[in-house]
């Protein structure tokens, strides 16, 4: 606490500050006005320097250096762009080649799936029904060979789809086709050229004649749209290897 | 008073004749002016201090101008022209400030 009568002890800085806040004087007013001017000027300057991006403070050499720096950066950017363009061209080439190869492989796969009986198929063709009589292995084999000669692309006997390795065996009540027992009637669904297919059945001493000779009734129906829903399962192979 | 007259004559002559400064000397002109300012304020302070000498004034004027210009010229040749000129201006500025402060003390007793 300051002594009002005796010699004053020197005030600490903090005490001085506190005292000045408590007792405003003329000196403080002057300082206040000047500080107001400083504050105003400072804020104005900040606004001015942030608003314009002028190069007023730059010497000519600085400007030249800046320009050179920017030009070099642009050149580097252009080089990068050129390289990226080259990359893109190469990648476009590669993807188009791969796409073509992929389409080709898929097309081939689709065809093979049809020919190996792995998918249901539809198309123009013929439906043959063989009812009654005694259908022998021999006559069935013959029929199949004739149909193939006539360009059959898919054949199904009842619910069994024929493949390259299909075989016919004799069974007690009828036939075994690829190991499946069947007895008449036999429905052969064939896809191919209907004219050629029916011609392959009906020529003199051909399959129809043979079957009828054994007592069967043979009905041949050509159609624009024959559906074969039966599919062959991909057999397991043990010895065959791709070349 | 006559001294001030001399200054006025010089300024008028400069404005009237408007001489073309040779291109090589152009960059050094501002530096020379600041160096000259330093010498002039130094002289004015010496006058107010009571220790003015015209010979010293002349010598300090000419040598300040030449030395400042020479320093910046060498700097330009070395490639640090901008930086050296900044340094010279800083030093000259400090000296001018000091001398003007002393002059103010003499004039305003403040």
């Amino acid at each position, binding site marked *: 606490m300051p002594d009002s009568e005796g010699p004053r002890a020197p005030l600490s800085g903090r005490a001085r500050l506190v005292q000045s806040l408590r007792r405003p004087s003329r000196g403080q007013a002057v300082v206040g006005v000047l500080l107001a001017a400083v504050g105003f000027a400072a804020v104005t300057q900040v606004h001015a320097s942030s608003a314009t991006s002028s190069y007023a403070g730059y010497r000519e050499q600085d400007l030249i250096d800046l320009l050179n720096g920017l030009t070099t950066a642009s050149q580097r950017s252009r080089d990068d762009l050129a390289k990226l363009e080259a990359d*893109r061209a190469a990648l476009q080439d590669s993807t188009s080649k791969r796409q073509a190869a992929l389409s080709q492989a898929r097309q081939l796969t689709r065809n093979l799936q049809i020919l190996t009986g792995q998918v249901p198929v539809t198309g123009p063709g013929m439906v043959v029904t063989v009812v009654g009589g005694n259908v022998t292995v021999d006559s069935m084999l013959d029929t199949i060979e004739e149909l193939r000669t006539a360009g059959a692309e898919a054949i199904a006997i009842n619910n069994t789809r024929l493949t390259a390795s299909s075989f016919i*065996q004799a069974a007690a009540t009828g036939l075994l086709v690829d190991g499946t027992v069947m007895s008449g009637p036999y429905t052969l669904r064939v896809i191919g050229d209907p004219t050629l297919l029916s011609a392959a059945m009906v020529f003199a001493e051909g399959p129809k004649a043979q079957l009828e000779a054994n007592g069967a009734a043979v009905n041949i129906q050509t159609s624009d749209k024959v559906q074969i829903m039966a599919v062959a399962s991909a057999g397991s192979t043990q010895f065959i290897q791709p070349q | 008073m006559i001294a001030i007259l001399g200054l006025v004559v010089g300024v008028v002559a400069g404005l009237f004749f408007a001489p073309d400064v040779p291109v090589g000397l152009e960059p050094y002109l501002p530096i020379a002016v600041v160096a000259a300012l330093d010498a002039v304020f130094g002289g004015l302070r010496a006058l107010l201090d009571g220790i003015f000498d015209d010979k010293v004034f002349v010598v300090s004027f000419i040598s300040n101008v030449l030395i400042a210009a020479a320093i910046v010229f060498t700097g330009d040749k070395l490639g640090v022209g901008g930086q050296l000129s900044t340094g010279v201006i800083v030093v000259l500025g400090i000296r001018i400030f000091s001398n003007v402060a002393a002059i103010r003390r003499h004039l305003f007793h403040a």
Partner: protein
Amino acid sequence: MTQRELPPHVTVPLLDRLTASALDADYQTVADRRLAAGEQSSRLGLAQLMVVLALFGLLVSTAFAQTRRDATVSANGRATLISQIAEQKAALTRLAAQEAVLRRSVSALRGQDSVLNKQGAAAQSLLQRLQTPSGFSAVHGPGLRALVTDGPPAADKSNLVRDSDLAFLVNGLWASGAEAIAINGQRLTSLSAIRNSGWAIHVNGRGLAAPYTVEVIGDPNQLQAKLLETTTGQLWFAIVRQVGFEFTMTSVKNLTLPAAPLRTPQSAEAIAAAGGKAQDSQGGTK
């Protein structure tokens, strides 16, 4: 030990020294000298003073005038530089944007390429699994080589091997576990027919002549055994005996069978399954 007093130019900081020596020491020295000589401390030689001040005035006004003149020229130069700088900055921004776009597209393409690569590999592997047993690609493996020759000559040519005879043999071989068959180098597929055209047997549309080499890939022992056991096989042997063909079978460690020419299906089309995709092959080689 007495401490040597350090001279002022060592102890005093730089700025303080600059401020302290703002006035040339010469003034003081000359003034002291004059006082010592008994003269006035200050001397104003008006003539010299005037000249120097005139020079100073000239210097200052020339500098002002020059700067004003240069201002236009340098302003133009600066203006060009500044406009060039602005151009380059704009160019850089443009280039950076282009680069970003290109980078994205290259990265997308890379992704696409990699996906296509994987798809391609998968498609190839699927294709190979399909092709091998189909007859439309070359294969090799252990098996049998059977030779069928016409029987002893007969007037009515009934000794000649006929299409149906070979069909019986082939049927028997499939039933016995054959995995691939070729007759005289003609690979059998689901499209292959064995047909007589006149006296010649045609397979895959190509005419063949006796003797007929039937190459079979499969288990050599099983093939022979089953052919002999099964009724289908026995059908074949009955014919052999009846007509008098020469028939031999030899085991072969490694047979190579060629591919049959592929015919693209002209009439048959796959039916898309309910999900909208054609069924993929199921199962595979064990």
